[in-house]
């Protein structure tokens, strides 16, 4: 299926290649570069490219292109999904998926690729299994290795691969048995210039960090499971149990993993936790305009909204901005024309605002469209949908684990539009809200 993989950095250097079948010449990437040149920016490089003898399927992650070479019909998502798994694995192993990290660890990268794809077909993609086969680099280990000459190739049997539960290794032992769950919700919203919500949706994930000995069998139940409209599961979850009882029953992988991701049904009205008052105007036949935005809390359920960042893509004619802010700090990049305002926390007594003058290129016509605002924020200890974990039970092991749940609401894709005349409607994209509660103890 997948013949070869090329890793390409932003400046177009192929810095790593790996072939699972016969060697495909680097020159096949020329077709990719051609497509890249045609595209306006990296985001617009088509993921699937047809060349006379091959097909190239690529992903763009962390400023790197992963370009795979395919020869015959294959579901493109199959390849895309796999490439993302590869990138995830690098991220997991090296802490970042960057050119430098990959080059520094080229041997491990090669070993990983060898394990992940066997003759073009995915073999071991589960991080738990990979980590047993190939140990991730740590400072201590590289020191030890260089002294003893031992390797980072595991010499123990990867038990997980053989046990009944392919995602969990056998013989896990901890002195402190802990299970933590992070309920992270994001609000995606588009708000028009009048402040009314065009579109809002809550997406959530439950990330787990499980450090439990042996083979624990967990079941997690919710106070209000009906909220979850559409759910996708980690393979460990027993689907039938969820169907019949709405309980998440599973034998967890060891360590960090994403248990479920879900969408809250759109019937529920989404409470938007912040509002923005804005006035952006450009005078006709003049080289300056006025800019004024204020942010305030709204329906925040008594929790503090923090980590607010507002990003505005200003029109191209904007040369510079002279602004004053009552809170936080702002930066304007005259090259990309992006205004970033780091607000921080909102205190309802004194609403943060940012106002001042906009300098335009002289002679240029005034921008016809007002920019849209992207807003990021975070609310700890709150899942905006109201989702609550009821209890976590463990079977199959004797010890008592420590259990904790944390809620965070974040802005996902949160956009507000600041509109104009006919044929223009403002659009805010609110990104999400994120609630975080600190290890509330469960029964």
């Amino acid at each position, binding site marked *: 299926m997948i013949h070869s993989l090329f890793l390409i950095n932003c400046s177009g250097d192929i810095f790593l290649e790996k072939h699972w079948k016969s060697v495909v010449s680097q020159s096949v990437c020329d077709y990719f570069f051609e497509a890249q040149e045609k595209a306006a920016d990296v985001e617009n490089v088509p993921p699937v490219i047809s060349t006379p003898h091959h097909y190239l399927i690529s992903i763009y*992650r962390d400023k790197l292109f992963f370009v795979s070479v*395919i020869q015959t*019909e294959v579901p493109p*998502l199959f390849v895309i999904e796999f490439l993302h798994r590869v990138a995830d694995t690098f991220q997991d192993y090296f802490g970042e998926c960057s050119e430098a990290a990959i080059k520094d660890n080229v041997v491990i990268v090669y070993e990983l690729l060898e394990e992940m794809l066997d*003759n073009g077909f995915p073999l071991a993609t589960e991080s738990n299994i990979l980590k047993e086969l190939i140990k991730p680099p740590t400072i201590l280990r590289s020191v030890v290795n260089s002294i003893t000459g031992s390797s980072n190739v595991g010499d123990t049997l990867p038990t997980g*691969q053989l046990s009944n539960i392919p995602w969990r290794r056998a013989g896990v032992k901890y002195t402190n048995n802990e299970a933590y769950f992070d309920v992270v919700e994001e609000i995606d919203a588009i708000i028009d210039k009048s402040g009314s919500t065009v579109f809002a949706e809550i997406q959530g994930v439950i990330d787990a960090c499980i450090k439990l000995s042996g083979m624990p069998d967990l079941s997690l139940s919710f106070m209000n499971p009906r909220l979850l409209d559409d759910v996708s599961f980690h393979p460990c979850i027993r689907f039938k149990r969820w169907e019949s009882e709405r309980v998440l029953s599973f034998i967890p992988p060891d360590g960090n993993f994403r248990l479920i991701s879900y969408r809250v049904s759109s019937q529920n009205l989404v409470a938007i936790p912040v509002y923005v008052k804005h006035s952006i105007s450009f005078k006709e036949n003049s080289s300056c305009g006025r800019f004024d935005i204020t942010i305030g809390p709204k329906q925040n359920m008594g929790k503090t909204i923090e980590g607010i960042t507002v990003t505005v893509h200003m029109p191209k004619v904007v040369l510079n901005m002279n602004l004053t802010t009552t809170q936080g700090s702002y930066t304007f990049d005259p090259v990309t024309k992006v205004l970033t305002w780091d607000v921080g926390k909102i205190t309802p007594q004194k609403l943060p605002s940012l106002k001042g003058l906009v300098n335009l290129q002289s002679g240029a016509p005034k921008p016809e469209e007002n920019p849209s605002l992207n807003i990021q924020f975070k609310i700890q200890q709150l899942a905006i949908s109201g989702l609550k974990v009821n209890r976590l039970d463990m079977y199959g092991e004797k010890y008592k684990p420590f259990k904790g749940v944390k809620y965070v609401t974040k802005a996902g894709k949160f956009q507000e539009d600041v509109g104009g005349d006919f*044929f223009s409607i403002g659009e805010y*994209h609110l990104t999400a809200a994120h609630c975080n509660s600190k290890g509330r103890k469960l029964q």
Partner: protein
Amino acid sequence: MSSNSFSYNEQSGGGEATELGQEATSTISPSGAFGLFSSDLKKNEDLKQMLESNKDSAKLDAMKRIVGMIAKGKNASELFPAVVKNVASKNIEIKKLVYVYLVRYAEEQQDLALLSISTFQRALKDPNQLIRASALRVLSSIRVPIIVPIMMLAIKEASADLSPYVRKNAAHAIQKLYSVVMAFEEVCPDRIDLIHKNYRKLCNLLVDVEEWGQVVIIHMLTRYARTQFVSPWKEGDELEDNEKNFYESDDDQKEKTDKRKKPYTMDPDHRLLIRNTKPLLQSRNAAVVMAVAQLYWHISPKSEAGIISKSLVRLLRSNREVQYIVLQNIATMSIQRKGMFEPYLKSFYVRSTDPTMIKTLKLEILTNLANEANISTLLREFQTYVKSQDKQFAAATIQTIGRCATNILEVTDTCLNGLVCLLSNRDEIVVAESVVVIKKLLQMQPVQHGEIIKHMAKLLDSITVPVARASILWLIGENCERVPKIAPDVLRKMAKSFTSEDDLVKLQILNLGAKLYLTNSKQTKLLTQYILNLGKYDQNYDIRDRTRFIRQLIVPNEKSGALSKYAKKIFLAQKPAPLLESPFKDRDHFQLGTLSHTLNIKATGYLELSNWPEVAPDPSVRNVEVIELAKEWTPAGKAKQENSAKKFYSESEEEGDSSDSSSDSESESGSESGEQGKSGEEGDSNEDSSEDSSSEQDSESGRESGLENKRTAKRNSKAKGKSDSEDGEKENEKSKTSDSSNAESSSIEDSSSDSESESESESESESRKVTQEKEKKTKQGRTPLTKDVSLLDLDDFNPVSTPIALPTPALSPSLMADLEGLNLSTSSSVISVSTPVFVPTKTHVLLHRMSGKGLAAHYFFPRQPCIFGDKMVSIQITLNNTTDQKIENIHIGEKKLPIGLKMHVFNPIDSLEPEGSITVSMGIDFCDSTQTASFQLCTKDDCFSVNIQPPVGELLLPVAMSEKDFKKEQGMLTGMNETSAVIIAAPQNFTPSVIFQKVVNIANVGAVPSGQDNIHRFAAKTVHSGSLMLVTVELKEGSTAQLIINTEKTVIGSVLLRELKPVLSQG
């Protein structure tokens, strides 16, 4: 890493440790190190020295640098000898890196690679299981054909390895050569009949197969379902499209009405597939979700396909590549079935941060979903988009508005007004696009739009985009009688600027002139003639041509004939309005989720999804195995059924009050053999170990079943210490004759599979387990009677020409055992056929490109059992198009076969692209003779006579037998049936490997283990009659040897002798 070693140096900067640290550093700063390599080849000398040093650290360092070079794509092949030496290194890491190197270069340096083989053989016996496993993997990844026999042996040994990990890898190695599903997809995708027996098994196993395997299996089952079940789509359905046409084009009216009367009932197997794939919509893997979505789209009733929308919309939260593919598929779906995605309309709203390609796709979907009810909301949304800073996207939006205006009549005027407003937009691209769209809209509406045209005429002064200018001119020309005052003035202005206009605009100016000349010649005659004169001397020949043409047509002179009378009709005819269609309109004939769909071209290896059959093929084909099973297993089946019922209750109790009863289930499931699945109860590690151990037995016995009858039977009773299996064996013999129990037991089987639907998860998996197990046992029980050639059977793998590994179902041994049941052939012969030990790559010319007018054909013998019939020899033909034109309709025409010969032709090939090549397989039954099969290879235009004469060695299939059996058979084939010859050759030609290599090169025979060093035995059977062919090479004193062939087919025997003799005596 580099920082690590620095920090290390700081901590303890002592003697050797520092040195090591520095070495590590130099490895790690890749840019520097690599840069040096590329510039200075002498550095390689340095590496060689390091590799030859006796310090492991130096070697390791060198290897790391070499791997770095490989990763950079630099050529490190000249280091091959130095590296290969280290394959025997004791250090695991060095070894692993050497393996990495070997896999990369072995193909290029085959001779040298062979040097390392012996080390691999040693490594396969290494005490460290990881080394054993990786040696096996590397061995199977080195694509050197000569090592195939060694690999065979290695796999055989590994499959009996004590370590389960090595065994698992062995399973993968097998898959590399001969994987079940992929082999199916590769070799015989149109042989749908091979799936029948395994269909239910695949459906039931689907949830437990790991995610990558699910994708492949679901795609295969989709294709299968389309050939085996009748359409679940109701005929009167309004949304029905091509399928409806398909039925309507059917002339047989009577049958149609018949069909309507008969209520549709879904085949339970069809239902099984749809039901069992549903949970996979919840998968975290986007590819699996998409695969299920396309399955529902293509095979489920339309009323049920709705559930996929939610999952697909969920995927839109994923990264841009996934979004791109999913949106494309949704776009195709939303054209045909709007209703599916209407509730999710807002999910397709465009965000300013989306990349343009995603925006455009979303826009496309929004347009498809637009209807009277939601159009006003959508238009409001579109208004925002038009203002977008992304001008490409803004232009696409304007096109979209045009499409909505034509599709939804209520809003046509609103849209038109909106577009006209856009004409005063400051951005030229927006204006130009609006002009083009307005032109199309006006063309569709023959109503008076004088005002708009006037407005547009004014724009001509300001707008510069050629397409827009041309559009305006065309509009004015078409409506010149409605704007009688403006049109001539426009022409005047244009005449002035003619020379500086774009070609596109010039053509429209000419058109406008011609139209005005015909309608208003008084005012414009001179102007037009002036323009025609300008055009006559234009640089562009299109324009000169057009000018000449128009002049002849409209300006009356003596030469112009009758045509000029009709000039007005020609120029000012009523033109049909253009249809504004979705660019995704034509993609629906591709299966969704495929590469071909994404690219909108047929990708290599794409298989068309067939139309539903009008009448379902016999559904009982999928029962075959079940009936056989029932025949042999009636009473045992009953007992099992009870067992499963009991199991169900105990399990569900355990569900109720969780942890306490776990000990119960433990013992139960422990005895239940090593089945597993994520829905099963995996509560306890005790249970695991018991399951593990029993699964080991399973996989072991599973893989080797069919090896040798006696041994299998023995192991059966030994490994399965279960009373039923022994019972079964007796029963099995007894029930051979009892046909009466047939029906009953098959119904039991049915009910057990039906019960799955109603019962809970646990019971489902349990009953499935039981069924599987039963089947498995039957298989083993049956082995003594019939011979199964099962795919994962060790003695039966064939190197597929382009091997592609299977999505590793080897995760669980039970799956292995199950997949083993995926039989490809049911040869009834008593002799057990084994795999070819060697497949020569030699090809023969079937048709030379000179004589084939550019079409070249080569054939070779893949030495696989033929899939078209067990008496046929399989042949692979590679067709090459060496011309620069497509060759169409390549097929086999007239056949001139000697009496008795049969031939299974390949399916006609629609077209072969220039420089393209395609490999097809066919089968010929040569009746165990070397007669020539002549036939015609035809293309659309030509027929070429070609012929295939088989070498005698290809008329054989290798046979596995023991030395004892060999001697016994040989004893029966003496006298007339024996031919022999004496060979004389140099001693170095009489080493076992040389003889082996030479014999298997000539003939498709299997090696027979030999107790004596000086005797080599090979066994095969003829393909057609299955007669044994026994070859013995006995080494004698002083460089002579005796070659003996024993066979009933004396003619072939003597021919083979003649062929072998010179080869063996050669130097």
